[in-house]
């Protein structure tokens, strides 16, 4: 029902647009016609959840793209000698794989030149087959599940790290600090949450930690008491949750209400300041990871631009979608064409300094030498403890001193 309303309103909008264009052609203003050359519109798609429990992540990602395209349009870009205007086509996949495929097809039909997204691994992976079939490159700024770039698709990229880097990073941090004997692992039964939880479990087991049977909720679960009570009986030293903040916040709060004393660790989906609001005092001391550099370490131009345009702070992965959009355009400018077949080789070979540092892709489409960051919740703010780059652990200041994300 929802969908049919959308389709209907879209077709009405299309009809209005067509009518408008036709009218313009019939009666051109004689004075304006020779002066301004025609501006070609190049459409860039963005897909993320804009409704539902993690809509704030989706909007944050979309804002990154919006800001990037605004900045590019302000420079009066040209492709193949004609001025172009980059236009954002933003779609909502509701974090649902089925809807994700529908909107992916919609973007293909709208002939977008490239796509930034999707956000959830669970929607990015199935949608990538559709974009690949249509030959449209996609760059995700948030999907961390390894399978995303393991499908052999040429035009699939990501500017964040992978969960087989993130999982070990957070697990190793837990092992070295909490020295656990028993660990409990919970996930939200999504491709992202389960995938990350599997990676963490693998690393914990490899280090000789006993891992309890996996517990699961869904991406909408807010009542974790039954699961937590069961875990409480097993007395784990650490608990890892693979899921988002909207479900992780209640989980952490309820765990402390049940007087579970274990150390808690979350992945990037639960690594936001929102956790402190959702879990209150229970959030203090939470360990969490992000598959990239922390937003504080992103380029100044991005941070200033974002705050000025949206009157809020970036949440987590908007610097990455911002870079993803700029990467698409940079590749187009290098190839001097918005034709995916022409600019794709330029994108594969790109060497670009963006808000998140230097971006190069390997043959799979993964970001080379992606950073991982470990955070802890301190005074209701997620505070970066260590940025892991090329196997080395750096503090935020040390990373800033490298100056890679200066642009």
């Amino acid at each position, binding site marked *: *029902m*929802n969908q049919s309303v959308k389709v209907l309103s879209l077709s009405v909008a299309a009809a209005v647009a067509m009518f408008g264009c036709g009218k313009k052609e019939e009666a051109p203003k004689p004075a304006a016609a020779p002066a301004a050359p025609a501006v070609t519109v190049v459409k860039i798609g963005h897909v993320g959840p804009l409704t539902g429990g993690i809509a704030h992540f989706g909007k944050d990602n979309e804002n990154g793209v919006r800001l990037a395209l605004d900045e590019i349009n302000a420079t009066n870009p040209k492709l193949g000698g004609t001025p172009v205007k980059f236009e954002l086509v933003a779609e909502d996949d509701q974090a649902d794989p089925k809807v994700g495929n529908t909107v992916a097809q919609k973007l293909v039909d709208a002939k977008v030149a490239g796509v930034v997204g999707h956000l959830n691994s669970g929607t990015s992976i199935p949608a990538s087959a559709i974009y690949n079939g249509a030959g449209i490159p996609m760059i995700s700024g948030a999907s961390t599940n390894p399978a995303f770039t393991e499908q052999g698709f040429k035009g699939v990229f990501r500017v964040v790290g992978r969960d087989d880097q993130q999982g070990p990073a957070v697990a190793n941090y837990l092992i070295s600090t909490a020295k656990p004997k028993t660990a409990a692992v919970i996930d939200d039964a999504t491709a992202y949450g389960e995938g990350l939880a599997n990676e963490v479990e693998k690393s914990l087991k490899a280090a000789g930690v006993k891992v309890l049977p*996996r517990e699961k*909720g869904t991406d909408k679960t807010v009542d974790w008491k*039954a*699961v937590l009570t069961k875990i409480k009986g097993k007395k784990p030293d650490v608990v890892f949750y693979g899921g988002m903040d909207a479900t992780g916040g*209640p989980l952490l709060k309820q765990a402390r209400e049940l007087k579970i004393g274990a150390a808690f660790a979350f992945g990037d989906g639960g690594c936001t300041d929102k956790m402190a609001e959702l*879990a209150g005092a229970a959030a203090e001391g939470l360990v969490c990871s992000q598959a990239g550099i922390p937003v504080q370490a992103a380029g100044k131009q991005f941070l200033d631009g974002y705050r000025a345009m949206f009157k809020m702070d970036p949440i987590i992965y908007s610097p990455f979608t911002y870079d993803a959009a700029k990467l698409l355009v940079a590749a187009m400018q290098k190839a001097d064409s918005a034709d995916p077949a022409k600019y794709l080789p330029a994108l594969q070979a790109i060497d670009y300094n963006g808000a998140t540092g230097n971006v190069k892709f390997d043959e799979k489409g993964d970001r080379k030498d992606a950073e991982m960051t470990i955070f802890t919740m301190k005074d209701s703010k997620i505070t970066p403890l260590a940025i892991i780059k090329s196997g080395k652990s750096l503090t935020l200041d040390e990373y800033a001193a490298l100056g890679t994300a200066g642009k």
Partner: protein
Amino acid sequence: MDILLQQIINGLTTGSVYAIVALGYTMVYGVIQLINFAHGEVVMIGAMVAFTVIMAVAGAGLPLPPVVIVLAGVLAAIPVCMAIGYLLERLAYRPLRHAPRLAPLITAIGMSIVLQHLALLVWGRDPLAFPQIMENASFVIGGAAISSVQIGIIVLSVAMMAGLTWFVYRTKFGIAIRATAEDVRIAALMGIDANRVIAATFIIGAALGAVAGVMVGTYYGIAHYTMGFTLGLKAFSAAVLGGIGNLAGAMLGGIVLGLVEALGTGYIGEFTDLCQWPLVGDALAERCAADGHAVLFGSNYQDVFAFLVLILVLVFRPSGLLGERVSERA
């Protein structure tokens, strides 16, 4: 043992909330045989309004005890939800009262979407963090922790159920409601204003829903414009489980559903751990030695239990645990 007690406490808390929401479904169904699918959304709006008021009052910096602040939220949410309940009935359902039954049902789903998106426009798409002002002191009884919020929820729910029962069975207006439930036309002939009675069932259900919304918000510490959907579905299941149209049934259904969910989630993993089963365990000896467990069904079946129990009850007792009041209507 302490774990079992803890799961029972968990189940009673969620069960009480289901029961209160289920009453809203069952009252409306009892009178006009309509499943008001927008009821879950009314609960959500209750939580949202309370959130706004609690934030405003807590932000004003007055030296009020937390209970008073939350109470202010409840008192603001109740009239708003009552108004929405009335408007739903007056604008959406009353014009369709004599239409085929499918029409009001589809309208109810439509109203649910409308209310959800209204809330999206007003409160935004972020999950709202309920301010953690209630000092959530946990008491330990027999090894199980029970928080003051949980005690509050259970006590308040029991009080509301008792109050509603008294209202329906001991007051003149309650008699009018029951008469209308039995036969709208005969009741109207006896001088009962059926429109008033039907509107009242919506309003009372919505008021209960508002309180439930605040309970859920303070208990989980989170409110979101989509929260009404699952809660509504579970509460509806509870109402059907107990026997839709039957007040006591809704209460029992809610509690049973809460307990089944908590205990099911808590114990299915242990019952289906293949390592402890004699024959299969030997076959999996290698894996059991390595992991210590080989669980067939885990806690991801949490939401399945509610519906599994519902199906089982409906197979063996199609009219629910306590039965729809068909006998009275016959």
